[in-house]
């Protein structure tokens, strides 16, 4: 018996050692890594459960169609769903390699995914691959792993369609001198216009080329038609034939350049894929401390890690854009984005789905941004919220003083390229921006401005209420002559309340006084009333109380606040979110769905309103203040406790219901 246990233990160990994570194949200098943790996902929703969902069935149908009936289920693919799936981006000498790494238990069935004749499968030792001859994309696999590498060459100095070939200003030698001038002018004008447009359409090379050609030709044709000498035919002339031959020559040269470049890209991409699949980099991403830190406790279902934005920006800029006209020459990308990383984590818990975001910046940027987020929170705000009726809110807790002090420095940093750049214009812009920001700092009284608007504000969507509105209809007599009659109908309107801290009561009252004197504002029952107009189709009430300016659409709500009779109710969670976050956002899904009249739903959702009411919960989004040189964000979507075994299953059930 002991031997049996030893055998099982050895077997498990062997399997564990074999099943090494594909992360070891990701180079440590990858710019972006996305991980989907198969095991964690499967613990929440098994492959069988997914396959039996409507979405799963849809995918299976697609697999069946694609493989012409060779495979009928997701399971047939042979994926090893308990392992991690990866996507990563690596930039090498101006080429973006987008790589997907997919673990398989068995890759025998992969061949069935390429039923088309043009998908030529090459077997090369232990690996097999298919490569697209146009863009170099490679799908390569061995017994347990499949890679898909999508290259994108940022160095392309050839252009696919060569619109410059048609930018030929040669003038056809027509007999009439006037006509020549007209043609010259017209061609020049059209070409210039078209080139302007062409330059803005980087990607649409072919369309642009045709456009230039067609429009130029059209004008030439028109003008020639007006020419008295009708015997001349430019398209039969030697000049045209010569120009045409030159164009053809340029086209062939361009084709050859493209061909060579694509072949080189295909070769490097194939080598890249082989190297990845057959070996491992000398230093993998698992040795990158930033990445390791981003993995946290490892209990997330999916993570996204983006490293060093400055490098990505630089690599993403095509070389042909670099040079004296490159707008990025004027920006100090290193300073702005250097050391910036972002980590996103998706976690499906029992009763909520959580998306976390960590944003790390350089010490210098953190120092610049920090004062902006150091806002003081007005605790009185919490007394004006009633969660029972609340539909949603957005709170901002910034420091106006901090923003006004930091802004000039940030602008100066953004344009401060003098250390890295020899471009005169960039130096001029840097000097000019520095002067302007300095002037701004000297002229603005940051302390004074913060008395008007301290920086903490709260916008509440407090209620939905029914309101009677009139409309014009007709009544007919016995001759069907009609007269216009006013009828009424009920509409649902939202109520909102916006409040912000301000010490400037006098300024507020003076503004309102001007409105009163101009008959735009009425002072009623201790508050200001701005009647609805064509430009603001709702009544607005405003007042000042306890260092706070209130602006809202409900007179009742403001009256209660004024009299101190407003009943507030707020959970500890929302109190914490509003008061501790730099920015906080909340939607009470249940309240909203239950209060929206059924007619307002799209027809196809009306039969599912009960399902939506019972299955829509709260959404909370919070962004923290800056701590150290990091800022964190969190999106939490509550899911119903009843009827779904966890939040991932909830999403699947929701999709199923909506697909009905």
């Amino acid at each position, binding site marked *: 018996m002991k031997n049996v246990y030893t055998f099982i233990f050895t077997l498990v160990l062997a399997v564990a050692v074999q099943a090494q994570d594909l992360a070891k194949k990701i180079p440590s200098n990858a710019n972006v890594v996305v991980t989907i943790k198969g095991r964690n996902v499967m613990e929440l929703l098994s492959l069988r459960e997914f396959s039996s969902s409507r979405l799963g069935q849809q995918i299976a149908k697609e697999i069946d169609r694609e493989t012409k009936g060779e495979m009928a289920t997701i399971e047939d693919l042979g994926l090893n769903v308990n392992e991690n799936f990866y996507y990563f981006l690596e930039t090498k000498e101006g080429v973006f390699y987008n790589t997907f790494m997919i673990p398989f238990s068995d890759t025998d069935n992969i061949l069935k995914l390429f039923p088309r004749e043009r998908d030529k499968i090459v077997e090369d030792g232990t690996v097999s691959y298919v490569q697209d001859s146009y863009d170099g994309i490679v799908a390569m696999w061995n017994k347990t792993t499949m890679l898909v590498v999508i290259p994108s060459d940022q160095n392309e100095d050839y252009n696919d369609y060569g619109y410059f070939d048609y930018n030929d200003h040669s003038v056809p030698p027509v007999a009439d001198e006037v006509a020549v001038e007209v043609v010259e002018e017209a061609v020049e004008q059209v070409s210039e216009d078209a080139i302007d447009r062409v330059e803005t359409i980087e990607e649409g090379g072919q369309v642009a080329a045709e456009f230039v050609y067609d429009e130029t030709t059209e004008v030439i044709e028109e003008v020639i038609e007006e020419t008295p000498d009708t015997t001349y035919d430019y398209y039969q002339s030697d000049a045209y034939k010569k120009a045409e031959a030159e164009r053809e020559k340029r086209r062939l040269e361009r084709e050859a350049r493209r061909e060579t470049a694509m072949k080189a890209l295909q070769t490097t991409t194939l080598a890249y894929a082989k190297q990845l699949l057959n070996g491992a980099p000398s230093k993998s991403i698992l040795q990158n401390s930033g990445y390791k830190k981003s993995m946290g406790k490892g209990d997330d279902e999916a993570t996204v890690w983006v490293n060093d934005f400055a490098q990505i920006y630089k690599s993403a800029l095509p070389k042909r854009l670099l040079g004296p006209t490159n707008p990025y020459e004027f920006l100090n990308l290193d300073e702005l984005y250097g050391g910036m990383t972002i980590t996103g984590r998706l976690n499906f818990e029992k009763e909520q789905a959580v998306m976390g975001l960590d944003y790390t910046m350089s010490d210098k940027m953190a120092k610049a941004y920090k004062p902006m987020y150091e806002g003081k929170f007005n605790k009185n705000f919490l007394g004006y919220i009633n969660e029972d009726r609340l539909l949603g809110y957005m709170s901002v807790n910034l420091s106006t003083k901090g923003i006004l002090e930091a802004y000039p420095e940030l602008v100066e940093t953004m344009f401060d390229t003098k250390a890295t750049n020899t471009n005169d214009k960039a130096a001029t812009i840097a000097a000019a921006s520095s002067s302007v920001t300095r002037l701004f700092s000297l002229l603005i009284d940051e302390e004074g401005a913060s008395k008007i608007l301290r920086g903490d504000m709260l*916008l509440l*969507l407090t209620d*939905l209420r029914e309101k009677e*509105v009139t*409309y*014009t*209809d*007709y009544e*007919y007599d*016995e*001759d*069907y*002559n*009609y007269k216009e009659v006013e009828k009424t*109908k009920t*509409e*649902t*309107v*939202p109520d*909102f309340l*916006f409040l912000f801290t301000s010490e400037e009561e006098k300024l507020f009252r003076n503004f309102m006084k001007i409105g009163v004197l101009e008959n735009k504002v009425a002072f009623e029952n201790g508050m200001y009333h701005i009647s609805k107009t*064509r*430009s*603001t*189709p*709702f009544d607005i009430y405003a007042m000042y109380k306890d260092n706070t300016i209130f*602006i809202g*659409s409900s007179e009742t709500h403001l009256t209660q606040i004024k009299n101190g009779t407003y009943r507030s109710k707020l959970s500890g969670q929302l109190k914490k979110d509003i008061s501790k976050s730099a920015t906080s956002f909340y939607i009470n899904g249940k309240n909203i769905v239950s209060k*929206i*009249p059924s*007619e*307002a739903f*799209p*027809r196809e959702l009306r039969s599912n309103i009960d399902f939506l009411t019972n299955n829509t919960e709260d959404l909370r989004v919070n962004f923290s203040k800056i701590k150290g040189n990091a800022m964190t964000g969190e999106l939490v979507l509550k899911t119903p406790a009843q009827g779904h075994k966890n939040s991932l299953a909830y999403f699947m059930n929701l999709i199923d219901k909506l697909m009905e």
Partner: protein
Amino acid sequence: MLKKSLTYLFLVTLLVLNSSCFDILEEINLKKDGSGTMLITVNMSKSKTKLASIMLLDSINGYKVPSEDDIELALNDVMAHLKKSKGITNIKQTKDFENYIFSVSCDFESIESLNGITAHLIQEQNKRESTKFETSNFAYNATEKVFERKFTYDASIKKSFDYLKKEDKKVFQDASFTAIYRFEDQIEETSNTIAKIAPSKKAVMLRVDAMSFILGEKTIKNKVKLINSK
């Protein structure tokens, strides 16, 4: 900035919550000799809250929202077109931007003059979209005493509707078209079974909801036989 943000939030909520619909009213008073008056009214007052909100936005569902100036310009174009049409006189327009009711009226010398207003536009449409709409909308036979509202349903109507986004389709859910034709003689019978003859027998009203019209379930086509009183 603040007002703009608040207004925007409010508007978006209003747009989601409130329905939009419109009514088109086509009226013709026809004399025995075939001349008469015509009045077209577009009444969007049931959607005025929504329209007032839409008018404050730059664009909605990917379409540019016309300003009051744009609408004025379009109405002026209609007026200019009518002025150029043969046999059309006494052209008037009304516009009410508070209630979103717009109308254009005119006198016509004969049914041919009335048809002349839109004939060219329909020809253009048929040519452009390969549709088969009749180029004349009305006919009147003074001898037989028969007035006709012509219309041939073309599948392109439903096709164009299907092409719209879901949100845009909602606009037509509660819209309707009403035609009222008044005569000096009494009506003997009408071909369209939905049409209602007035108690005085001198007018007929036909109301078709937009969805039935778009789907081809109901038609605005109607033949009105008048009693020959001489």
